[in-house]
């Protein structure tokens, strides 16, 4: 059996296929033959799915399909940016802690413990509330701030994993040999240990990205994340719930943004699981 066999099961193919389609539509949304996401047509408000509006329109007559595709851009950008921020913070912190003296390791990891003991989600909501007021956010810095917040929330698991792995790697014979040959500690860490951490880091990133995606959807759903006129899957679901009532049930507005998010999350989980199995030597028989 090949090393990557877990990634070639039918269900993994489906998941990878969905992710490719999602990323492609996100990248090429401006050039797709769809209406603009903010093109309002009040006469066509609340259209159920038909030939003009493939999956319906919203309260202002905007095409839901187009809004979902444009929302994909923001949602995926958040996930990738958050994942990258966590990668940058977490890997550097873990490498510096795990590769340093035991005193430095102790204090750097106590700091991680401290961060983990704080319920960051609630502080982030407070921060989002405060940030709504500032001129900087109104000038468009809000989305950037939001990306940074997402990364800051999720860097500690990465730091823990990288630190543990680093600690065990620098005790291996090849690391001792490199030190004996006169490799400076910093060079050993970044040029010898770091490449060996790549599978671990990759697996941890596949765990973090769905969590960031979830958190973006959570905050945007509450109205504290992505702000209009930007669209994300979370804000679309929020729009849907605001108009949900027994008199006029615009079910498509709830269903399709939820499906987009659900399919992507499940695909990410499936691919992440497969990747973990493929890259974990202990699970290879």
């Amino acid at each position, binding site marked *: 059996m090949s090393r990557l066999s877990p990634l070639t099961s039918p269900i993994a193919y489906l998941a990878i296929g969905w992710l490719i389609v999602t990323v492609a539509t996100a990248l090429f949304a401006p050039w797709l033959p769809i209406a603009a996401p903010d093109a309002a047509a009040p006469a066509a408000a609340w259209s159920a799915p038909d030939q003009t509006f493939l999956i319906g329109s919203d309260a202002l007559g905007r095409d839901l399909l187009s809004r979902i595709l444009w929302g994909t851009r923001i949602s995926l950008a958040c996930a990738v940016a958050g994942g990258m921020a966590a990668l940058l913070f977490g890997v550097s912190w873990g490498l510096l802690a795990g590769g340093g003296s035991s005193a430095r390791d102790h204090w750097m990891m106590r700091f991680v413990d401290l961060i983990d*003991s*704080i319920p960051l989600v609630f502080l982030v909501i407070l921060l989002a509330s*405060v940030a709504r007021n500032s001129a900087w956010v109104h000038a468009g810095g809000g989305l950037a701030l939001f990306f940074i917040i997402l990364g800051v929330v999720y860097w500690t698991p990465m730091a823990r994993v990288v630190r543990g792995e680093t600690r065990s790697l620098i005790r291996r014979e090849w690391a001792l040999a490199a030190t004996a040959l006169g490799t400076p500690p910093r060079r050993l860490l970044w040029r010898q240990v770091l490449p060996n951490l790549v599978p671990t880091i990759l697996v941890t990133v596949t765990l973090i990205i769905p969590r960031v995606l979830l958190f973006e959807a959570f905050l945007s759903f509450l109205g504290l994340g992505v702000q209009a006129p930007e669209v994300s899957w979370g804000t679309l679901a929020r729009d849907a719930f605001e108009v949900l009532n027994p008199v006029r049930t615009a079910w498509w507005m709830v269903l399709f943004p939820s499906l987009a998010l659900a399919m992507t999350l499940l695909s990410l989980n499936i691919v992440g699981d497969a990747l973990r199995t493929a890259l974990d030597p202990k699970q290879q028989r």
Partner: protein
Amino acid sequence: MTSLLIRRTFASLITVWMVFTISFVIIRAAPGGPFDANRDPPADVKRAIEARYQLDAPLWSQYLDQLGGWLQLDPGPSLRQPDHDVASILGAGFPISLLLGSLALIIGTTVGVLLGILAALRPGSGFDHLVVITASIGLALPLYVIAGLLVLAVSFGLGWLPPAGWQTIPSLILPVLCLSLVPAAQAARLVRSGLIEMSTEEFARTARAKGISPFSVLFFHCLRPALIPLVATLAPTAAALLTGSLVVEQIFAIPGVGMHFIQGALNRDYPLVLGAVLLYTVLLQLLSLLADLLTWMLDPRLREPLQ
């Protein structure tokens, strides 16, 4: 044990104090005060407002004043609802959220443990796969997706249950169901894997060799050690419940703490938001303390004094 308890309590107090301090810094560091979005008032009116909410005092004295106020559970008035103070708003929401949360925790955990046991009776069977897959999906999807689809199907499609509210038992069913999904999925997964692991242990093999039925071995011998990880994850589960309650109270229009918290965050009612953040922090710290105590009671290995 006592020294452990004292140390844990002390660490919890430090955490709560840090959350308060960070929140204070965030609120004060933001450019512009909470009233700046309103029409700009005349200078003396603005001074009067600032004096009313003590925004004109030096920072350190505001910090100490507020800290003192919170310690005496008298945090002062809300910024947006001038007739109510923060304590009474949160006090009104708390019983509702508590009812919702504890129902969800109890029902979710019970159902999850039962499903976990049933799945572990025949590992690899169709039912086992069903439980594992459902639990993974339940943990992977955001609550509003599940809640949204449930409301669409059950309330609007079939018309069986009301889509909002909390005062009658039928209207409580959907919110509690949504909120109990995460604890149920968590419990089912942990109990299943714990039981399967325990049933390969020597004590379980011995019990089976003595002729005890597999069900009794699982239920009376393996269940107790398998429950320990469940208790240990009480604190993260509670955190998931709290964040979940923000979404569920929003969807079902339930006036609990979560609803006031989000409303306060949306219209920048800082004292109210700070109050909710502190309430949640204290709650989480209490629950994690409780989880440690329960683990200690369930696991006799922890009770033996270390030499």
